[in-house]
Every structure is written in C-alpha cells, then in structure tokens.
C-alpha cells in the first residue's frame, strides 16, 4: 500500500513507534500462547505481555556494584532504539517503508544485531558470573548465526538485483515465491531469526537451568523491560523481513498478517519440538551445516544470474 505518513507520526505512532511496541507484545502473546498449547498448558492471558511490561517498568531498578552505571542504564535504551530504527526501512504491515535508501538491507541487519551486541555488553559489564558466561555465549552465538542469516537474506536480493528492502518486497510480489526457488535460504533465515532472538532450542545464552537468565541476570525493572520489548520488536521485524523476502512479499495489512502469523506458528512449533542445543552444538550446526548450505545456494544463484543471459543469448538468439 502506498500510503505516506507524516514523519513525526510514523516515528512515534504508526506504523513505527507505539504501534510497533504494541504489535510486538501481541506477537509475544501469540508466540507464548501457541507454545503453551503445544505443551498442553493453558498459556498466558491476552494482556500478559503488557502486564509484564508495566510491572517491570514500575519495579525498582537495582544497579549492582562493580558495573559501569552509564553503560548499565544506556545499553537497554540503545538496544530498543536500534530495534525501532531498524523498523523504519521495513515494510511493516504492508505499508511502504517510512525511510528507504539504497542498500538499507545491510543497515537494517546491522541494526538488528545491535540488540545481541548490547545484551553481550550488558552481561560483560556486570561482575555476575552467570552474566559473564551468558555474555560469552550470546556473542559466540552472534558470530555463528549472523553470517549464514545475512547470506540467506542476500539470496533474494541478488536475484532481484536490489538491496533495498522496500523494492525487494515490491518485486517479490511479482515473481515466484522465493521459498520455492530458495528453500535452503528460507530455512536458514527462519532458524537464524530464532538464533538471533535466543528462542529455544537456541536459548543456550539464557539457559535458566545453567546460568539463570544469562547476560540479563542482573537486570531488573526498567532495563529488563526495555530489553524484553526490544526483543519483541525484533521478532516482528524479523518475521516481516522473512515473509517479505521468501513468502512473496505483501502490499496489504491482511497479507502481512497471515504471512507473518504463519511464520510465527512455524517458529512456535520449532521451539517446542527440540531440546536445548549446547553452545558448541549451536556453533557446529551453523558453521558445519548452515553456512555451507547457504554458500552453495548463493553460488548457484550467482551462477544462475550470470549464466541465464548467456544461455538465453545462445539459445534464444
């Protein structure tokens, strides 16, 4: 849909800003409810993510001794800001991206990684041993999924010849869905998103039975609330990106909804199917299988795009 919003409105209310925060909570609710139903539990009530958020905001924020106070307070804010900034170049809810520029795909992906980086720094900033182990694991995981995730999303970009998310979304509606032509890329991107968000089975960085809450162990109150809502926002943006790239893009909010919710259903199922991977297993999985598969696919794509004009010139000529 080609609706242009006034910049201030887009930043603060819709489709970025407040509306994005709320939809993050809705997505979190759906995710939690689905997993609960898969596990034969009742699951949370519809306002639970909001209630959690409000409760955490109202709570006292304890800043432990031995930490850099500025970093401790600033990191959650930076993380949330980065996630919200990333939303600007993404066709949220099927509307045209608010702020679009050439190759914004790369910038958006880096903005999405800022969250993990902030969590890692937040863990390393405290003296808590669980936090330090959690931070090490979070950063290790970042280095394992990031490259395959990026390469997987580059697949459609290379085929369509543009690195602009909005244009990719537009063009994807006119071509064969990339989930059909690049199934490996789709799988790697989806699983990469789960790794990015530290969802099970990639939740080693915050494995509660080992290291309590991982890097965020020392966070309470506002800081923790911001990290959580930031992650929800990333979930929405990540699902938007993948469905725009691989599920044929979308131009209406309705299209957006069913495609992202379908993906959410798949990730929820994946989350409840597996036992937690150890961090060494995660790294092994990504570098031994994920990266290689994606590289092979990328090679095929490049060969295909380079060779097809040649082939058509010879035979079609």
């Amino acid at each position, binding site marked *: 849909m080609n609706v242009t919003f006034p910049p201030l409105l887009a930043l603060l209310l819709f489709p970025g800003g407040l509306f994005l925060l709320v939809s993050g909570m809705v997505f979190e609710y759906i995710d939690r409810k689905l997993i609960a139903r898969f596990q034969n*539990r009742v699951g949370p009530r519809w306002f639970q993510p909001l209630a959690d958020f409000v409760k955490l905001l109202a709570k006292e924020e304890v800043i432990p001794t031995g930490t850099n106070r500025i970093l401790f307070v600033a990191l959650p804010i930076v993380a949330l800001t980065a996630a919200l900034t990333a939303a600007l170049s993404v066709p949220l809810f099927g509307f045209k991206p608010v702020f679009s520029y050439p190759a914004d795909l790369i910038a958006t992906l880096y903005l999405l990684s800022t969250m993990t980086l902030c969590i890692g720094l937040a863990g390393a900033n405290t003296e808590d*041993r669980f936090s330090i182990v959690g931070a090490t694991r979070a950063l290790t995981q970042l280095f394992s999924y990031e490259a395959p995730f990026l390469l997987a999303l580059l697949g459609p970009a290379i085929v369509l010849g543009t690195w602009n998310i909005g244009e990719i979304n537009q063009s994807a509606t006119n071509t064969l869905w990339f989930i059909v032509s690049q199934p490996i890329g789709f799988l790697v991107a989806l699983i990469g998103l789960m790794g990015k968000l530290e969802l099970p089975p990639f939740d*080693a960085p915050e494995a509660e*039975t*080992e290291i309590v809450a991982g890097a965020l162990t020392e966070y309470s109150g506002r800081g923790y609330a911001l990290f959580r809502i930031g992650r929800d926002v990333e979930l929405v943006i990540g699902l938007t990106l993948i469905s725009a790239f691989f599920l044929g893009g979308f131009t209406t909010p309705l299209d957006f909804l069913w495609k992202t919710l379908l993906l959410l259903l798949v990730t929820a199922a994946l989350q409840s199917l597996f*036992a937690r991977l150890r961090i060494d*297993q995660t790294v092994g999985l990504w570098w031994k299988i994920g990266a290689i598969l994606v590289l092979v696919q990328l090679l095929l794509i490049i060969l295909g795009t380079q060779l097809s004009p040649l082939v058509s010139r010879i035979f079609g000529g």
Partner: protein
Amino acid sequence: MDNKKIETFVVPIGPQHPALKEPGHFEFTVDGEIVTDATARLGFVHRGMEKGVEDRTWVQGLYLMERVCGICSHVHAMAFALGAEKLANVQAPPRAQAIRELVGELERIHSHMLWLGVAAHEGGFDTLFMLSWRDRETVMDLLELVSGNRVNYSANVLGGVKIDISAAQKDEILKGMDFLEERSRHYMKVVTEDETFLGRTRKIGVMAYEDARVLGAIGPTARASGVARDVRVESPYAGYVDFPVNIQLSDAGDLEARFVVRINELFESYRVIREILEKLPPGDLAARMPRRIPEGETISRVEAPRGELLYFMKSNGTDKPERIKVRTPSLCNWASVLQTAIGHKLADMPMILAGIDPCFSCNDRMVTIKTPANPDVWDWETLRQFGIEYYK
C-alpha cells in the same frame, strides 16, 4: 605478574538456583565451558528428624518418617514399619504385604515420571517436561483413589496397611496402567530417537561399571552402568517375595542409559502391578502390634525409586525408639556426580546432576561431637532451640 596464582573461574550453582528444586550448593570450576573441578556442599535443609523420632512413640514415628521425603514417602514408612515388625517379631499378613508393594510400585511410577520431566527440563526440553507431568497426574490420581492422598499416602500402619483395594479401584488402576504403558512407550521412543535430545544425553556423563562400583553408586544410576544392585531382587521384602520384579540393567552408563533404565523400570512396575491386582491374596490387612517394641536392633532395607534406602533401628524396650538412622539413596550417588562432571561442558551439569535423581533434604544430617567442652547429648528440645536461635 604473579604467575603462581592461577586464576580460576567458579560458577556457583545454588543454594538458590533455577536448576535446583531444593537447596544445595555446587561449585563448578570452569575453563571456558569445560568443567575442571566440582564440589558439593549440602546441609541447607537439615530438619532434625532422626532426633525428632526419638522423642516420639513408634506409631508417631511412622508418620514422621513418612515425611522424610515428599516423593518417596511410602518407602520410608514401609522401611520403618518393616523394621519395627522385625523387632517385634510380628509378621504382616500377605494381603498387607502385597498392598505395600502395590503402593510402592505406584509411587515408583510417579517418581520416575517426575524425574523424566525434571531431567528433560534441565536439558531445555520443556515439551517433554510438560507432557510427562501431565501423564503423571494419572498415577497421582490413582494414589489418591486408593489412599485419599496425593503425597503422603499413609498406607502403612505398624503390622500391616490400613487401605484395601476394592474391585472398582482395581479396574481404575488397570485402566491407568494401560494408559501409562502406552505413554511410556512413546517416551521411550523420544529419549532414544530424538536427535537433539540424544545430543544432550548420549555419551554424556558416562560412568563405567568399575567407577559405579568403586563410588558406591546405587539405584537406577548404578543399574545404568551395569551394576546389578536392587534390594527388591537381592533380598526381597514385603510383597516382593510373592510378586518378584526383574532387574533392569544397561551397560552404556551414560545419561541416555539412565533414561532407558528408568523407563524400563516403569514397564516392569506396570507388569507387577497388574500381577498383584490379579492375584491379590485374601485375608486381614494388619496384624496386632505391641505398643512397646522389645529391646534389640535391626537393619531394614528397601528399594526406593532412587536406590537402596537403609534404616538402622534400635529399640530399648519402651514405646519410643532409642535410635533411628536413615541413609537415603541420594547420599550414595553424590560422589558419582562429582566424578562424572569433570571434563564435561557447563551446559551438561544440570542434566548430570539431575541424572541421579537427587533429593537434597532427605540426606542432610547434623553431627555434634561429644567433647569435654560439650559433654551433653542433645535432646530434641535442645536441637529445636538451636535451630530457632540459628535462624533468628
């Protein structure tokens, strides 16, 4: 730079930690993710029950000892009752012995299914946790059906049991067993075939046969390493004489084997429960017990879900016991945890710890040494006062 000082990074687990359902303290020295040293410290939930039972009559003691453990409450009461009966030279009637075994096996089912869920949760497999606990409700309901209680069934009295199994209850139990057997088959498939789960259990926490013997491991932990140790088989007690069970062994010694052995024990329990219900001997439920137990001492051994449970009982001829010493199975298995932990990853620690099905509060003891400065033997009241002062 002081090179001699070796920097160690210790990850403390407990006394309060999400992985622990009871307070215990573990310190894992890690090099990156690899554990190089492990120590355990217990004693956070000492309750003074051994002392407490000395101040109570034999009948009251039965109810106190049943509360040593919330998961294996029946075996504690059974061990106590069997010991007291041995001292008093009273033989409980065969129907009572069979019902004791029946409740004991129902309890084993609930304990093993509880463990299955906890162990899966420690490995981050929450779906298995939730589903196995859902199915565990079946056996909890059956226990409530036969005894009226879900946790402390209070099935035993000195000299027999106080619950009977009616025809309607029998049908319910049989129906429950069919359901649980089908579910257990599914769980067996999950723990032996699920790739991600096997990645966390196969070849992890391996304890060789020799190690298990040397470290004195008992129960399913030992049986998973091929050590044929099961009191039910070695020296049958209660109903196990008439309704014997087969020992379940595995040679692998890893975490997967502990899952397999415990699930196989579930199948064995279903089988023996069906057999007991089929051929439940008729007759009285309890024999007459004297109020004063004759002087003497004895050892009573039973197989708890976690391994051999040992009671040393001494009577001085009054209506109160002179000394009761309880050695619970978890105590024997701690050494095996600390031994197998070394060399594994930090992420494996919760599962290795859960692999022995630990029970913390039942193995906490306090020892005071009689010295010239401290000549008195403490009585129950002193111990109680000490506890109140200590936690003030």
